[in-house]
């Protein structure tokens, strides 16, 4: 005689540590195996795209802080670059270097957060996360020193950056750059050979390169599947074409590969920042531009490589100071396109680490 069994519905979130924000999963379970999975988002929807239609381009920069609040700098940068491409406004050369330095610092901070929470999901509760926070904290201190804010930086401007870093910034940055490689090595020793970590992440949540491309994945989620696609190389913006760096890729596209791609990208970011610090020219940090820019009627789709992938801005101008249409392509949302396929048939703990490895930020998903 067998025990009667029937599928049951399990609700995870919206308030749950493994959902990384206000994200809700509705899972149909058959024992430990997921039969179907539905994601419910929108708890953080603030209608940014509608609000943006009533504000000037410069007034919209703070929205990009609050979209991806773990990577405000790259969000700022995406909008600044898009409007500059649209209007022909140029940023001074020093500002372009400062942008690269801050965008790469932000990438390190965001990857530390992503990998730290992923390890938490895999069972190493909180300790590695707090280790990773140690470096992130120093980066946020550098942000605070420069622009007064740690999270919602509002630092990039159309035609430059808002502030020149203070003199004490440069020694603090150097100190951080000197110790980061040793820290990454330390995490590698702690985690990468750890039996439990390997068994939780290897061969879990495998995304084939064909699926990754077809499902519009970008960033570490795409590169983890072995596709060497990075907008910093493919269509360089700012001064990325002047730096020497590699694009790390994974082998089979499992959770472990996505984790390792982020670890490697931290090293590459350190390389880029070191070169930028060595090359940065003196000069102004901002060009004077009109307060209310009126781009010619037309449209642009411009993108930059954020920590989570392609941050795209689709801007339509009708000649007025505000965009007629303002669309932010959210890499975190689009990277979830495969979640249902990945989750169905997996066990619940595997689905949780898979979600963690995609690295979502709900502010950007819901906008």
């Amino acid at each position, binding site marked *: 005689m067998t025990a009667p069994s029937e599928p049951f519905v399990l609700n995870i979130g919206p308030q749950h540590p493994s959902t990384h924000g206000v994200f809700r999963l509705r899972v149909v379970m058959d024992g430990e195996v997921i039969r179907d999975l539905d994601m419910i*988002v*929108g708890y953080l*929807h603030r*209608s940014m*795209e*509608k609000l943006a*239609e*009533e504000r000037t381009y410069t007034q919209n920069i703070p929205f990009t802080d609050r979209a991806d609040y773990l990577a405000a700098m790259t969000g700022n940068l995406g909008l600044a670059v898009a409007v500059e491409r649209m209007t022909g406004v140029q940023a001074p050369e020093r500002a372009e270097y400062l942008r690269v330095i801050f965008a790469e610092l932000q990438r390190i901070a965001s990857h530390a957060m992503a990998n730290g929470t992923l390890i938490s999901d895999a069972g190493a509760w909180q300790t590695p996360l707090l280790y990773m926070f140690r470096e992130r904290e120093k980066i946020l201190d550098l942000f605070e020193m420069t622009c007064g804010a740690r999270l919602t930086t509002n630092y990039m401007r159309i035609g430059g950056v808002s502030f020149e870093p203070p003199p004490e910034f440069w020694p603090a940055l150097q100190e951080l750059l000197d110790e980061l490689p040793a820290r990454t090595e330390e995490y590698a020793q702690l985690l990468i050979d750890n039996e439990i970590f390997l068994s939780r992440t290897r061969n879990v949540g495998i995304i084939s390169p064909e*699926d990754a*491309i*077809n*499902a*519009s*994945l970008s960033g570490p989620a795409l590169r983890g599947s072995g*596709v060497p*696609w990075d907008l910093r190389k*493919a*269509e360089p913006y700012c001064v990325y074409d002047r730096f020497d760096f590699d694009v790390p890729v994974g082998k089979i596209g499992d959770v472990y590969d996505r984790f390792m791609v982020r670890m490697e990208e931290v090293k590459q970011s350190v390389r880029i920042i070191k070169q930028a610090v060595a090359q940065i020219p003196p000069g102004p940090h901002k060009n004077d531009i009109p307060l209310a820019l009126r781009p010619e009627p037309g*449209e642009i*789709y411009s*993108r930059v490589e954020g920590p989570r992938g*392609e941050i*795209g801005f*689709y801007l*339509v101008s009708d000649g*007025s*100071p*505000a965009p*007629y*249409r303002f*669309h932010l*392509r959210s890499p975190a*949302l*689009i990277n*979830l*396109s*495969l979640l249902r396929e990945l989750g169905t048939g997996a066990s619940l703990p595997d689905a949780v680490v898979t979600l963690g490895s995609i690295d979502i930020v709900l502010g950007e998903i*819901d*906008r």
Partner: protein
Amino acid sequence: MAAALPGIVVTSNDEWVEVAPDRVDEALRWLRDSADFDAAQLSNLTAVDRHDHFEVVYHLQSLDLNHQIAVKAMLSDHETPILPSAYPVYKGALLQEREVFDLMGIRFQGHPDLRRLFLWEGFPGHPLRKDWMGMAGTVPGLARFPYEDKAAPDRLMNTDNLTADGRHTGSQIAGGH
């Protein structure tokens, strides 16, 4: 492209290709499979409300050839816009089409799971439409730059309590000290 897809391509310029809205899925499939374009990835999908029609915009890219192609479909029916889903061609359209449906109210035929993404079922209207008037019709749509051509309103004074010559009517102030 116009030669390979007779009747589908409407116009094209340097920036984008406009295709017939009812056959947009064929155009996307052809672009994805053609060796010259190799549009392997749907980078971005969104829509623009042009008051009398909708524009659905697809940004495609080739990772091997490193180029971008923008495809547009114009939907003249502003009340009930509908066009074929891109999901059978690109899985990446799954959530992006749900977002466009939610905020713009454009239906995608053949989408496996067309539900609202951010807003709840029963939400009145589609907020990114230009004629959206707010919840339950109580809040008028925000005018763009309402004070652009007018003098700034005096927010400090409540004119209800002022006499015709500008003095305050409050007796405790007028006869107080």
